[in-house]
């Protein structure tokens, strides 16, 4: 173990400490987003912390969505099965609302931890 070894170790540790405490590598605290896909392509994303209502134009029809209290839900849709409307509001990572007739998928990104153990994809 020579002198330069200590210097190398010290420099690397100081760099690590500096990077850690300078905080410029820290990830920004982004809130949860609801991402809307139509036919597999992302069309819009909503910040879940801001209450809004909007209309998504899917294939062959539209869905009315509502963002409230950090959750997103589909209020009404002119599809035939109404599965998306009956779905409970979602706000957690990996949760999704799907409207098959309109090929609309709403997914949560960067959301809170799911209460279930795991999701098999």
């Amino acid at each position, binding site marked *: 173990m020579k002198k330069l070894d200590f210097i190398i170790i010290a420099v690397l540790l100081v760099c690590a*400490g500096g*990077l850690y405490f300078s905080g410029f590598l820290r990830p920004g605290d982004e809130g949860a987003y609801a991402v809307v896909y139509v036919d597999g392509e992302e069309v819009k994303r909503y910040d879940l912390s801001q209450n809004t209502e909007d209309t998504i134009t899917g294939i062959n029809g539209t869905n009315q969505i509502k963002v409230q209290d950090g959750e997103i839900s589909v209020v009404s849709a002119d599809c035939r099965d109404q599965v998306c409307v009956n779905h409970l509001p979602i706000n957690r990572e990996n949760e999704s609302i799907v409207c098959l007739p309109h090929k609309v998928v709403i997914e949560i990104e960067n959301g809170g931890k799911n209460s279930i153990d795991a999701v098999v994809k």
Partner: protein
Amino acid sequence: MAKKTAYYGIFAALAILMGYVEAVIPMPVPIPGIKIGLSNIVVVLCMYVMGTKEAFYISIVRVVISALLFRGFVGLWYSLSGAFLSYGAMLAVHRLKDASIIGVSVTGGVFHNIGQIIVACIILGRNVVLYLIPILMVSGVAAGFAIGLVSKYCLNYLEKKRE
């Protein structure tokens, strides 16, 4: 030439074996990327016993084979970038006359982690993993130090054998 080929084979096999041993040992920390880097023993040793160019070949062979065997294709890119960056850094330190094998190993450990983080950023498309860099640097120093010590004793032994 034949002797050199045998050395290549032995070192490469050892490095791959170390990769396997490491894949079997579970890491008690929940941070991705923290590892001991056992196979770096072989690369560092090779740098001193065979030479820097040879160590580079061993490093590449090791990464490609052990990544395909134990980690899959995406793992290959992580390991490859880590191996390139750490080799470059180790080479630079190796050139310095005042640094011993421990300094080389520590540098290698740290830069291996940094290389992996860079690829993780590219693959994930977001810089969410950048904040891991300081943590991985410290773990790299610790692991590199341990690996350096082991390599040093191995090197002493090998040199004694040679005489």
